[in-house]
């Protein structure tokens, strides 16, 4: 494909005081794809996105949007993007129609065109009934939809979505996913951040996993999940069970390294298919390892994280002490998963 990349970022860095919130991230997003940036709270996803959207100055590195330099020509970049944040960025004191009209006018639409575009978007996002209500009366899902509508007024070719479904109920979430897919069929490119593996899995063609300001893995959802197995067996070992023996059984039967928490006796085993869970359990019984509970689940983001970085997704509260130890391990995994 000869088309310019929708997003091309090299070595992005953002520091807040001592904290390197974004620490050298490269991203390439092709035109027409949905690209997911996956990571826990505080990983630097939003910061990276805000830099690309000209909302934060780039401390080091470079970024281009459809070949336009973000640092040098922010005004031109702003004509090519729409951004919808975690917190609705619409005016609380105005009605839905007034909001869309205002944003349309600010982007150079004539008054009548702005009104027509507001009407069309309100219909498209199922907000016609609430068109003349103040936003203060809107539900969370309605706000999010209006916010997305406000990003689409001039039909920008690139849409940034910062955690588009965080805090939405499952039904609204599904609707939002359909809307996002719809954007791409119209020719838009979407760069979204999310904390949910299943969301990235459902929507994104490619995913970059971000942890502590660094990209630790990149690939298709399948490649990413293959790194942790397609499902996970969670076993609670009985008190006094031989944990070392259990570990050996798992290694022999599942051919994988279990994640064991010695204090609680909890063990997570990554599996290629859920069927293998039975084999492991039979192995436990035959070798006399007692267990108290068992469950088989799809891998969670936490497990993907554990597999890739060596620490859990919720461990970002103390980034400094743990970060030093695992960043090397993360980089090692990246070479395994990197597609290019």
């Amino acid at each position: 494909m000869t088309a310019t990349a929708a997003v091309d970022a090299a070595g992005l860095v953002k520091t807040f005081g001592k904290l390197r919130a974004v620490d050298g991230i490269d991203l390439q997003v092709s035109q027409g794809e949905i690209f997911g940036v996956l990571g826990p709270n505080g990983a630097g996803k939003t910061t990276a996105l805000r830099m690309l959207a000209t909302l934060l100055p780039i401390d080091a590195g470079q970024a281009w949007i459809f070949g336009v330099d973000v640092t040098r020509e922010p005004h031109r970049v702003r004509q090519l993007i729409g951004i919808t944040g975690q917190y609705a960025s619409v005016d609380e004191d105005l009605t839905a129609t007034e909001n869309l009209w205002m944003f349309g006018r600010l982007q150079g639409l004539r008054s009548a065109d702005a009104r027509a575009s507001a009407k069309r978007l309100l219909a498209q996002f199922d907000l016609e009934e609430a068109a003349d209500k103040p936003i203060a009366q809107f539900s969370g899902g309605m706000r999010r939809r209006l916010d997305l509508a406000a990003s689409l007024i001039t039909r920008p070719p690139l849409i940034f979505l910062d955690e588009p479904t965080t805090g939405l109920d499952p039904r609204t979430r599904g609707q939002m996913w359909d809307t996002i897919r719809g954007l791409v069929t119209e020719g838009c490119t979407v760069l979204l951040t999310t904390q949910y593996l299943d969301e990235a899995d459902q929507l994104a063609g490619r995913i970059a996993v971000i942890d502590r300001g660094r990209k630790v893995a990149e690939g298709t959802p399948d490649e990413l999940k293959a790194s942790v197995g397609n499902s996970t067996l969670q076993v609670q070992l009985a008190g006094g069970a031989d944990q070392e023996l259990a570990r050996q059984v798992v290694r022999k039967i599942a051919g994988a390294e279990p994640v064991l928490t010695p204090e609680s006796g909890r063990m997570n085993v990554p599996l290629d298919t859920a069927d293998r869970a039975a084999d492991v359990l039979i192995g436990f019984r035959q070798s006399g390892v007692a267990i108290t509970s068992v469950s088989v689940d799809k891998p969670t983001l936490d497990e993907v994280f554990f597999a890739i970085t060596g620490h859990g997704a919720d461990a970002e509260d103390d980034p400094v002490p743990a970060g030093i130890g695992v960043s090397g391990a993360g980089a090692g995994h990246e070479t395994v998963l990197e597609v290019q």
Partner: protein
Amino acid sequence: MSTITTAGPASAGPASAGTGPLRTVDPAAAVARTRPRTTITEIVSQTLIMAWRALKKMRRNPEQFFDVTLQPLLFTAMFAYIFGGAISGNVHSYLPLLIPGIVAQTVLTTCMSTGVQLREDMEKGVFDRFKALPMARIAPLAGPMVADLVRYLIAAGLTFMMGVIIGYRPGGGVLGVLGAIVLAIFTGWALAWIFTFIGTIAKSARAVQGISMLILFPLTFLSNAFVPVTTLPGWLADFVKINPVSHLVSATRALANQGVVTREAGWTLLAGLVVIAVFAPLSVRSYRRHM
């Protein structure tokens, strides 16, 4: 929407984006359409749209008008009856001195709320969108200030009205009073850029309020707004004479009471222009950096 309207997107430019729901997005064309900077026409139109937004908000939050309605009414009556006898012998002869002073004071207080409200507004999510839009950086600052002209008009108008009710008869006639009101509005608008700048640098709306009070109180009370300068000790009289608020008050008095445009009016206009020239760029720069 008909497909016919999408036939000429090249000529219609960005305005064509409102039509044709099923037209696919063409990134290359979008890049070709981008313009490197905002034009003067765009700056003016965006500022007016932001003023429209501010006016809508005022209409929906009428409590914002308390300061520009209650203060002129209350202060005019209060100061006239309390200080009138002491300063000018009686209330009636104090009014020509006092009313222009109150006009200056209320206009200045109104400027302060410009800064406070901007700060509150900037903390809202919608400012994120303003920053991400290809719009002039000055528009979100200048727009509310254009809308604030309404507030200055109410403040200055009500003060004169209250004065007339309690017996003030401006010698400058209707034209003189109108001139005084226009001058006060211009000065208020110009000085509001200082408070807008404070609004963009301060950490919170409360901080804006605090800093603004510190500036406002000495400026209004250490002027000739309420007392004749001759009653002041020498060192204080010197400060009062160079205080720009004194120039505004003197110019307003001359206009309202004698119907003449004095040199003071010229100084006031010049000071206003200097303040705009310095603080408008500073505010825009600070707002831009706030990203």
